[in-house]
């Protein structure tokens, strides 16, 4: 294989990896840190994408900018979701398993809701960088992935700073690891999880904007994301934000390398094998906490 080809596939794999990381961040927080397995997260990402589409069409905004605008409303949406979850399950001392049923139901309701509200067909938005590449030496990097990579990495950095430098962030990390430390900090688990679920949902808004910038959307596409998003979270070591970025990049690069050596038809099989191998050999993720 030509060297340029390998280089191109690694470079674009890296960019796509940042995009995958952005899609997975919300689940890293909810599953890894607050122990709420929100399987409806991909559906919320598509809700974000549809709302971003509406915003972009109404105000002629860039889809990524629309996604950012939605971050705050989605934070409150996350708060509301947690309040309901807390009332229905946590406060009654029910297992998180019953909560999973709730999220599965929510997933289907969201899909049907989006289909009836926005139509079953594919929707897309024109953006001036839609099929433009950034040419660096022998590389041509798709601008839509360059931008989503930048946005994804920025989200990772901001989240990492939030989790390590702020009181709320440290409390969120403590909620996952050490209930005693949490009570020493004087924080209530429910309050901490309220914030965490809000943050998790806020990332779905951003991810929705990115998905819209990258390609067309339709209401039932979220199912295609589930496997990949869980893979990224586990590869990264669930709960690790930096790990999520690395997990996304590992997945993106390995898919692309598979594409050029074996054919894209095998890319999903290879990433599944990598995931299974990581689970068997290094279950705490590629980046150990």
């Amino acid at each position, binding site marked *: 294989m030509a060297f340029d080809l390998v280089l191109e596939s690694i470079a674009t794999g890296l960019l796509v990896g940042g995009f995958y990381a952005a899609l997975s961040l919300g689940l890293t927080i909810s599953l890894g840190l607050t122990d709420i397995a929100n399987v409806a997260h991909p559906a919320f990402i598509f809700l974000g994408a549809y709302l971003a589409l509406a915003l972009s069409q109404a105000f002629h905004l860039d889809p990524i900018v629309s996604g950012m605008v939605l971050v705050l409303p989605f934070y409150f949406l996350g708060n509301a979701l947690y309040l309901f979850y807390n009332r229905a399950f946590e406060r009654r001392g029910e297992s998180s398993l019953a909560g999973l049923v709730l999220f599965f139901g929510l997933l289907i309701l969201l899909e049907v809701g989006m289909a*009836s509200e926005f139509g079953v067909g594919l929707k897309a938005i024109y953006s001036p960088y839609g099929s433009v590449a950034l040419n660096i030496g022998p590389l041509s990097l798709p601008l839509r992935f360059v931008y989503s990579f930048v946005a994804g990495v920025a989200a990772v950095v901001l989240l990492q700073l939030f989790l390590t430098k702020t009181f709320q962030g440290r409390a969120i990390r403590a909620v996952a690891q050490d209930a005693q430390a949490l009570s020493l900090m004087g924080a209530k688990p429910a309050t901490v999880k309220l914030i965490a679920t809000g943050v998790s949902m806020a990332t779905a808004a951003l991810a929705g904007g990115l998905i819209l910038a990258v390609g067309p959307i339709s209401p039932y596409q979220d199912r295609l994301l589930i496997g990949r998003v869980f893979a990224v979270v586990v590869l990264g070591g669930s709960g690790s934000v930096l790990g999520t970025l690395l997990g996304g990049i590992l997945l993106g690069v390995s898919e692309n390398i598979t594409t050029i050596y074996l054919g894209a038809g095998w890319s999903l099989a290879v990433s599944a094998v990598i995931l299974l191998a990581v689970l068997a050999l290094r279950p705490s993720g590629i980046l150990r906490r």
Partner: protein
Amino acid sequence: MKRSRAPLYLVILLSVGVALPIFFKQPYFYFASYIVLEYIALSVAWNLLGGYGGYLNFGTSAFFGVGAYASAYIFNSLRLPVILAIPAGGAMAALLGVLIGYSTLRLRGVYFAIATLAATTLVQSIVLNTPALGSAVGLYIRLPPPPPPYGNLIELLFATLFGVTVVSIALSYWVENSWIGRGLMALRDDEEAAETMGVPTFRLKMFANVLSGFLMGLVGAFYPLYIAYMEPYSTFDLGISFNVFVMTLIGGTGTWQGPVIGGLILGTIQQAASVTITSQYNLAVVAAAMLLFAVLAPGGLKGIFSKFITSRAE
């Protein structure tokens, strides 16, 4: 303590199910009930590891699909008798259970769950890239004529799947009331404590996983005959895994009755919704029912049934 009468009931149920198609002819009933039975059997199988052992399998469709493809390949391509193909489907799925189990059952439950999800992608991907299995084009199944007394293939399928379902329920009942079930429940509560009490946790998990996989594969092995055209997306559909998980939870995990109740009720609601609400909202109704059950009966419907019966008995 009296001897349990449950085996007797199961035998009666079995004969009713097997004999029903001979006397009652309504093909739609059998087509719709087939899917409900399929979900009951899959949920019962899922419960063996997920309910008793607490290890969640999100790859039901992987086991189901491996069973389906193995059996389709054996009788459709190799032209061997169906009667060989069905158990072979179960055996292949059991093998998948061994492979996944060996690599991940030593780890915490959540890793097992993710591994089963990844296994689904992997086996689907293998089928997609294997022309002998029809790749994405699919396999057209040659349907055999039904042997008497069944006049119709669906009646035979209903009767045999009914048998498999009842046998799965019986197996699940046996597991629950034997030392195996006790050991699984012990390790579900606390794996380390169970070990120190002599419970061979890994062996029990493997046993449950392989038995559960075998039953799922067995159920899948009938599927080619039902659908007549197999292709990897609907066979390995994540929706099957979700449904089975949700049904077991709604019915109540960790009891042999739970998955039966959940599969029967939610499966019937799904079938009924798809012919009474003739629009995309049929899915919404099913989802709303799921939400309602999850919020109102988080411990499963079985708990409500028991409460009702206890209060009536007093």
